[in-house]
């Protein structure tokens, strides 16, 4: 280090070392909790919360230079000291800072909530250990300045997701869901890895800092096609992680995990990692690959919305809603509205996390997830109901709430570039309002249903005479913590303060966080992300359009979803029923995969296993048997010959002894005879 370092330099160095601590604190919490968590008892979660809150604090402390446009970085040479391409480290620019903010703040709230939600669980401390590990790896992911470090954290995040989804692994459904999540995202990760390999072989540099340079060099050298391929492969990884079609099948099943897990990982942060990845490597995307992103995102957005309309499990509705919103973010990316997509990610994190926490609160109180068994909870759970409504309205885009600003940004971008996409997004937004409000109405309004701790209706509600949105056969496994609070049929009650408090904080965020990207405050978010194309003022036509969407969606939700009236005219009802069933069965994606991919694969593994059992094991056993035979022969040899020799020697000695014994006849005369003979012999010998 130089002796005469300037003040700015000094500040920068001081600040830069904080970058390490941001992911390191939760990591330390993880290690401590894994090793001695059980002994810490009720102190355990507070350790985790403290770590993450400290990380949040650090994030705020580095806010100022980042907002000023400085990119903080901390780097060290990893593989080679001479080749600069192998220096890995952390870099925080506006994009990373936004993600840091989301992960730390929302993560802290969710951890606080979990203290109440997971109370009494037998693996209480391990849950928080896993949460800490997840936060550490997510923070590392968003701060990575090198593709490899990002990939490492990417995989680590996937592992944490697996661990947390199958946290209650005693339930076979949970274990299966964890496996499914891991394997499906793995398929996407292969794409990401291939993209990284390709990038490395072509360019040899994997640092994010240089992506613009890389793009320019590849286009110049006429390898623009490779650029499309690389970005498409990277997007494939995002498809897996962010659950776009066709790799979306794991997200609904991931609802088997605890609700806080669903809130943190599958609503706010991990699934957003794919969006972040696309944003980060945006420089590598060509118009062609962006087209792919747009199309897949749009398909996901619309398809998931239709399925969400038919689901009767709270968490499944929210899962498909997340899928839909992620698709929306990808659409925004495809429209080159990177900032709008990130803005929506940021706002979505708040209200979706809040909705999941609210659902968890409901499940915690009523012990069921089925809409058929819920209802009229507003009276008993005013806080939960109110906050849930706030989140729902924000998501629907009630003017001037967070969701309004973010969604409008996307719609604006669509309107300005592709009108077709614009109208499809309008349709999607209408469906969004519809299912969200349907959920809220059914859950919190209406007559109180009898709560039961067992499974909900298994399709007995499937009415044949009207295609209303009554329960279709959905997976009825409850994802509430497997222990009972009171007898079945007990009355629902408001959740404890430790659960409601964080929800309230998130509620505030859901309401006003969007102002950061609004023209009223000067679009600070846009400046943060380096985007200077923000709109200066409110777009009035869009405001009306949004209000209209809300009205139509809300009205449909009330009439069809809540009051259960079938609005379709008579001749169209069969079609309606068909469409409904198709959506209710999630378009048979799982069945298709099971048939086309999983079954052949399993039969292949079975035949390989038989091969292994017969041939390989046969060879091994045969070798063993040869050894056995050799052993037999050797034993026989040893027994007869070797023992024979030994025994023979003994027998010889015995015979000699026996013979010698006969000399001792007891007859003295014979002794004398021997003496005489000996004397004679000796004399003869001496003479000779």
């Amino acid at each position, binding site marked *: 280090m130089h002796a005469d370092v300037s003040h700015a330099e000094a500040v920068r160095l001081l600040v830069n070392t904080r970058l390490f601590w941001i992911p390191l604190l939760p990591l330390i919490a993880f290690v401590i909790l894994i090793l001695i968590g059980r002994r810490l008892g009720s102190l355990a979660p507070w350790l985790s919360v403290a770590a993450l809150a400290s990380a949040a604090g650090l994030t705020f402390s580095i806010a100022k230079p980042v907002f000023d446009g400085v990119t903080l970085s901390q780097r060290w040479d990893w593989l080679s000291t001479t080749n600069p391409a192998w220096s890995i480290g952390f870099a925080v620019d506006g994009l990373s800072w936004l993600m840091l903010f989301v992960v730390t703040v929302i993560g802290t709230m969710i951890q606080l909530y979990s203290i109440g939600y997971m109370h009494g669980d037998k693996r209480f401390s391990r849950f928080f250990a896993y949460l800490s590990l997840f936060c550490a790896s997510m923070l590392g992911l968003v701060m990575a300045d090198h593709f490899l470090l990002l990939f490492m954290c990417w995989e680590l995040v996937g592992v944490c997701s697996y661990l947390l989804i199958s946290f209650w692994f005693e339930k076979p459904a949970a274990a299966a869901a964890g496996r499914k999540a891991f394997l499906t995202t793995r398929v996407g990760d292969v794409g990401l890895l291939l993209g990284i390999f390709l990038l490395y072989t072509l360019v040899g540099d994997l640092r994010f800092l240089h992506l613009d340079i890389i793009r320019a060099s590849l286009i110049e050298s006429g390898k623009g096609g490779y650029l499309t391929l690389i970005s498409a492969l990277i997007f494939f990884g995002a498809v897996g992680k962010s659950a776009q079609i066709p790799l979306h099948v794991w997200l609904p099943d991931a609802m088997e995990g605890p609700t806080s897990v669903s809130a943190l990982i599958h609503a706010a942060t991990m699934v957003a990692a794919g969006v972040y990845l696309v944003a980060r490597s945006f420089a590598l995307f060509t118009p062609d690959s962006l087209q792919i992103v747009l199309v897949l995102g749009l398909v996901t957005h619309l398809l998931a919305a239709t399925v969400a309309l038919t689901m009767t499990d709270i968490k499944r509705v929210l899962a498909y809603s997340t899928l839909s919103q992620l698709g929306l973010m990808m659409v925004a990316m495809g429209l080159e509205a990177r900032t709008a997509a990130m803005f929506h990610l940021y706002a979505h994190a708040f209200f979706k996390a809040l909705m999941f926490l609210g659902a968890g609160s409901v499940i915690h109180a009523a012990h069921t997830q089925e809409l058929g068994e819920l209802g009229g909870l507003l009276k008993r759970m005013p806080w939960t109901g109110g906050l849930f409504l706030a989140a729902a309205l924000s998501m629907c885009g009630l003017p001037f709430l967070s969701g309004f600003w973010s969604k409008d940004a996307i719609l604006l971008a669509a309107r300005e570039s592709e009108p077709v996409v614009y109208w499809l997004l309008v349709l999607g937004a209408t469906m969004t309002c519809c299912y969200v409000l349907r959920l809220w109405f059914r859950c919190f309004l209406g007559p109180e249903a009898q709560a039961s701790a067992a499974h909900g209706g298994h399709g007995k509600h499937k009415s044949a005479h009207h295609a209303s949105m009554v329960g279709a056969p959905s997976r009825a496994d409850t994802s509430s913590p497997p222990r009972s609070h009171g007898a079945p049929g007990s009355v629902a009650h408001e959740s404890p303060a430790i659960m409601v408090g964080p929800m309230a904080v998130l509620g505030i965020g859901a309401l006003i966080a969007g102002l950061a990207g609004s023209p009223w405050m000067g679009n600070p978010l846009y400046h943060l992300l380096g985007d200077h194309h923000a709109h200066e003022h409110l777009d009035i036509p869009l405001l009306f359009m949004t209000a209209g969407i809300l009205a139509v969606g809300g009205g449909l939700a009330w009439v069809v979803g809540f009051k259960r009236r079938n609005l379709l005219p008579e001749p169209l009802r069969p079609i309606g029923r068909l469409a409904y069933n198709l959506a209710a069965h999630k378009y048979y994606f799982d069945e298709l995969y099971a048939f086309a991919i999983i079954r052949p694969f399993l039969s292949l593994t079975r035949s390989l296993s038989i091969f292994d059992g017969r041939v390989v094991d046969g060879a091994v056993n045969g070798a063993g048997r040869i050894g056995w035979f050799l052993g037999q022969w050797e034993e026989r040899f040893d027994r007869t010959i070797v023992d024979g020799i030994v025994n023979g020697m003994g027998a010889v000695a015995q015979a000699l002894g026996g013979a010698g014994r006969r000399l001792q006849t007891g007859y003295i005369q014979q002794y004398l*005879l021997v003496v005489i003979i000996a004397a004679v012999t000796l004399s003869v010998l001496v*003479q000779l």
Partner: protein
Amino acid sequence: MGMAQTDIIRTVAFGLISALVLVSAFWVVTLTNLFRAALSLGLVLVGVACLFLLMAAEFLAFVQILVYVGAILTMVIFAIMLTGKLQTTVDAPSRSCGLLAAAASGALFAILAAAILGFPWPISNQTEVVTPAAIGQQMVTTLVLPFEVISLVFVAVMIGAMVLAAGRERAKKGRVG
């Protein structure tokens, strides 16, 4: 008589006595009738006494007759009489046993004879005779120890013989002494 005549008489006498001794000894070891064997032993003893006489050891000759023939032989004959009924089998050796023993003793005799005949014995011109007085004198001077020990041996033998002979009776009757 002249010296030559004495020598001739001596030689003839020696020959006769040797023949007696040998034959009697042969009878001693071969006669199956033990009584006759004992009597043959008597003959041997007498022959040995005569040999003593020939070797100018009169005192020993007398002692021989007195002790050996008079006492020992008598005792042996007594024993033969006492245990005569117990002799259940004829005291003849089995053929193989006898041959082996004969061979062994024959070999021994051969060895001894070879040694005797091969040794240059010095010829003695001794004219002095050993008198009983000399023997007696030696007994109480140089050989007083063996003399006394012999006495002890006698005592021990007497006691031992008495104990042995009377053993069972004493055990039966429980008498002491």
